């Protein structure tokens, strides 16, 4: 055992081993370092419903607001940026060739 850890009796007295026992039980899951994606997906699926008309409308308004903010705060160069799309287009032609 590394010597920087308290002796067993001391750990018992300080409550560290009790804490470990608790941590080994149900409480431990709250301190799980990696997110439990399976549980998260299960929860999401349980609560999922296709967006309602009202939710879609709220989203569309939000989208327009974000777009307006973005377009007012970006240069015309940024607005016309299409390099990535050109790359994909040319890659498609490179792989498939031109349709006869």
């Amino acid at each position, binding site marked *: 055992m590394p010597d920087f850890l308290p002796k067993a009796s001391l750990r018992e007295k300080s409550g560290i081993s009790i804490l470990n026992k608790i941590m080994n039980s149900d409480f431990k899951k709250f301190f799980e370092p990696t997110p439990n994606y399976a549980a998260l997906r299960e929860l999401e699926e349980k609560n999922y419903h296709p967006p309602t008309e009202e939710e*879609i*409308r709220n989203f569309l*308004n939000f989208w327009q607001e974000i*777009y307006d903010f973005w377009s007012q705060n970006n240069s015309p160069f940024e607005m016309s940026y299409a390099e990535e*799309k050109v790359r994909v*287009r040319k890659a498609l032609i490179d792989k498939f060739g031109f349709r006869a």
Partner: protein
Amino acid sequence: MIRFEKTLKRLDEFCEEVSIKYAVIGGVAVITYDYQRTTKDIDITVLCNLEELKSIHDKFIQSYLPVHDDSLNFFSRNFLLPVKDKITDIKIDVAAGLTIFDDTIIKRRIRTKLGRAEFYICTLEDLIIYKLFASRHLDLGDVEMLLIKNKNSLDKKYLFESAEKFKELEREDISENLQKLFNQQIL
């Protein structure tokens, strides 16, 4: 109606009027398939061949504002025509659908609605394949969310068969990434 809806509606009417077959792809298609994220423009692919590039360009330029000065030259070199709607000022990137893949996308396109706009959109499966082909982080993130949101309506057979075909074109990553994202979702 927000400006994006108006732009989509006007675009659909315009393509109908000048007999251009198109399908919405990209961010707007992702949003329409229930993954609500924002996007800065509208991406469409239009069915055409090399000889028709000028005519497609001219039709668009009659009704839309070109983003680049020498737009025909840009379109001929890059097969992408960025234009802006004269009324809404929203940018539309018109991709020349010159490949057999674009042909498939447009043949399988479906009519859909987003808010109050009605237009043609690529199918969910073709959108996923297109995104896997583009393969940027943003695209793979989109695919992950599209799989989650549409797991019950997805044509898995078509999706995997299409991804498999890309192996012959030395793009094994498409089916590998699809499989990886599927396993991750435990679909």
